[in-house]
């Protein structure tokens, strides 16, 4: 115990202070949560982009099973009207292509709500035509709708706009919440680091005062705390990122296995992975700056 030939690293015994493990754990947890929040935001962004692009310039022409006078049409009547509507649409210059959805395809669409195995041939299902347009301006949609009504007065064009708008608003709110959560996590990390630094300064008050009286500038003293906080925060952040990465891989695998296209895809792109990989450095910088500001503020109380 008497010999101390170890390499000098600190004037203040910060690496011997209690609580270092606690701070590492706290930062690891905060980084883990931030990573999940950011990944969720990225996934939501990708999902809305996919939906928007998927529905771009795509509309659905619908020939309802109920006629304008309220009479329920037979399957043959619906089939005939759908074929005539399709002919009218394909003759229009705004239409790129059409696809008349088969009974099987329509059955698949309603399956999540009505279940499988139902005698759908006895259910009055509408006729649906997936239409791809050159553009989806209101004028184009109105023209096509007028054209359809010459075939069947009850026919209509569904641009999915209302549904998509609601969904985009919802996902936008979720993204905002994810960003807000990330900011709160950042603030919590700042608070934790500041608290830890203040605590260490209190524990080592006598040593800090001695350095101060020997003529150490405030920056000389703060550099010691900055370095210590940087190392602890970096260690914690690395652990948090690794835990987050494993979790995201697991979630991505699970969501991939489920194969449900409506859900967010947690498999991230290269740029997004790079952004998350920068987290430890970002956390370390935040911790360093926080430590510096905290130390300088405390030192201001000294003469």
């Amino acid at each position, binding site marked *: 115990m008497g*010999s101390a030939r170890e390499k000098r690293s600190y*004037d203040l*015994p910060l690496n011997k202070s209690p609580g270092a493990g606690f701070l590492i754990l706290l930062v690891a947890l905060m980084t883990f949560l931030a990573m999940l929040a950011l990944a969720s935001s990225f996934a939501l962004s990708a999902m809305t982009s996919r939906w928007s692009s998927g529905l771009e310039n795509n509309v659905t022409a619908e020939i309802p099973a109920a006629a304008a006078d309220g009479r329920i049409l037979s399957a043959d009547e619906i089939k005939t009207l759908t074929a005539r509507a399709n002919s009218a649409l394909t003759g229009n210059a705004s239409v790129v292509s059409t696809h008349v959805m088969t009974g099987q395809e329509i059955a698949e669409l309603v399956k999540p709500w009505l279940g499988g195995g139902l005698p759908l041939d006895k259910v009055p299902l509408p006729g649906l035509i997936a239409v791809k347009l050159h553009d989806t301006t209101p004028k184009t949609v109105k023209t096509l709708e007028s054209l359809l009504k010459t075939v069947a007065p009850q026919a209509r064009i569904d641009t999915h706009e209302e549904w998509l708008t609601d969904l985009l608003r919802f996902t936008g709110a979720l993204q905002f919440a994810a960003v807000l959560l990330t900011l709160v996590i950042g603030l919590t990390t700042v608070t934790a680091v500041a608290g830890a630094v203040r605590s260490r300064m209190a524990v080592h008050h006598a*040593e800090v005062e001695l*350095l*101060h009286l*020997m*003529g*150490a500038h405030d920056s000389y003293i703060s550099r010691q705390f900055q370095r210590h906080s940087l190392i602890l925060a970096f260690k914690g952040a690395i652990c948090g990122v690794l835990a987050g990465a494993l979790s995201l891989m697991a979630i991505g695998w699970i969501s991939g296995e489920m194969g449900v296209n409506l859900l967010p895809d947690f498999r991230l792109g290269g740029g997004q992975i790079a952004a998350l990989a920068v987290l430890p450095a970002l956390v370390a910088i935040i911790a360093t700056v926080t430590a510096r500001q905290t130390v300088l503020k405390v030192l201001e109380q*000294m003469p």
Partner: protein
Amino acid sequence: MIRFEHVGLRYGIGPEVLSDIDFALEPGSFHFLTGPSGAGKTSLLSLMYLGRRPTRGLLTMFGQNINGVSRAQLAPLRQRIGMVFQDYRLLGHMSAFDNVALPLRIQGRPEKEIKSNVHELLEWVGLGDHMHVLPNTMSGGQQQRVSIARAVITRPRLLLADEPTGNLDDEIGFRLMNLFDQLNRMGTTILIATHDQGMIERFGHPKLVLEAGRVRVEEPKHWLARKMQGVF
């Protein structure tokens, strides 16, 4: 070097512990600071090593009005002061070498220079084979020598010492007082707070006597005579 003009010091809202302190230390002077316990020696020293600012009056050090100096400007002034504390105030996690080297590192001196100077000084104070030992395994006297070495390693312009020879045997104490004398001859202004009347009489430097928060200067006759002869 140092000038106190009607300086007072109060802690919080309590009574003044120092009142109307008026004296000056010329550059290169050597004084002892004496007085009964509780007279305010430690408080006076704390003003001089810039651990506090006066609550009233004018304190001038190194040509600067301390009350008017910013915090950032105090650091370079403190680097010109060497302080030997009564309780040593060594950093327990650092070896004797690193404790003595600390003021040089704070000043940003090169490691090669630090190593050379610290080795030499620790050898001189008789701790050459204790360089890498931690203070908590040293005797009080050894710790005091480390503390003194730390205070003088930068060849300060002002050296303040609070009972520096208290735990030392006569031989080491005499050697250290000779070190102080040597530094003084090289231009360092020295003030030593002590109760050791024997040392005061032996070395015969002027005294600052602190009583009831006030200071009076006592200059021994032989010292006065030497001064008049132009020895100083």
